[in-house]
């Protein structure tokens, strides 16, 4: 069933029946390529958007970090037992998250070839 000649035959059949039509289609729909400065503008603008978003995310991370740290310090001062319980719950959740992420990593998409 897995005859290696099948692939070549299929390719030849495709080229004969459809290849030319697709090449003509490509020719008929050759787009107008914008000037270099338009690409530079696109790249520059998008890089700036990404940078702005990264700064926002960093700021948000710091805010959440400060809030959590403040909350923990407050709890530590109020009730040592609840502080330990909460720490244990957070540690378990973190381990669970890492396990799930590690599992997903095997099937995650690769963009870096």
């Amino acid at each position, binding site marked *: 069933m897995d005859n290696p000649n099948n692939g070549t035959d*299929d*390719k030849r*059949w*495709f*080229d004969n*029946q*459809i*290849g030319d*039509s*697709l090449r*003509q*289609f*490509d*020719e*008929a*729909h*050759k*787009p107008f*390529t*914008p000037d*270099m400065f338009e*690409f*530079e503008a*696109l*790249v*520059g603008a*998008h*890089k700036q958007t*990404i940078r702005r978003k990264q700064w926002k995310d960093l700021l948000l991370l710091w805010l959440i970090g400060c809030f959590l740290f403040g909350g923990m310090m407050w709890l530590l001062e109020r009730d040592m037992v609840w502080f330990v319980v909460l720490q244990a719950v957070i540690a378990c959740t973190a381990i669970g998250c890492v396990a799930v992420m590690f599992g997903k990593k095997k*099937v995650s*998409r*690769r*963009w*870096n*070839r």
Partner: protein
Amino acid sequence: MVDEQGLIRKAARGDSRALSELLQQHYSFLFQYALKLTMNRSYAEDVTQETMLRAIEKIGTFQGKAKFSTWLITIASRIYVDRIRSKERERRWVQEEQTLRAIRYETQTVMGDWPEALDAIGRMPGDIRMAILLKYYYGYAQEEIASMLDLPVGTVKSRLHNGLKQLRKELGDDGQS
């Protein structure tokens, strides 16, 4: 003139001009791929634009093992797959039937003809059309397509098999195979 690898290295290090040059060089190729994939001009423009934005975001992670055009095709294909999965795509289905007619009219105006072969390609489900184009028009191996689309090789094989079968049937050649 700087070669492609040189441009990729510069672009990955953050050189905006090198990246712009790469995108400009591949713009036409990318648009034509997106158009064959979607058979819809405005949709192809969307996919092309989104692919370029994604490439700008991810260029730092591109190692240059594959050709830049292959990398762009991979991104465009995944964007297309994500879109055909989304609800938005379903809502636009009727509209797209009309735009297939539009691309047919546009092609007829330029080429003076709308070959039956293009009609057969245009009527195929998007995921099958994509596999067929990548394998038989762009010449990628099944394993490469599987890696590009993040699919098992078996799925690619079955899409190619079903796609060719459908094409042969539509083009009145189902006796062979």
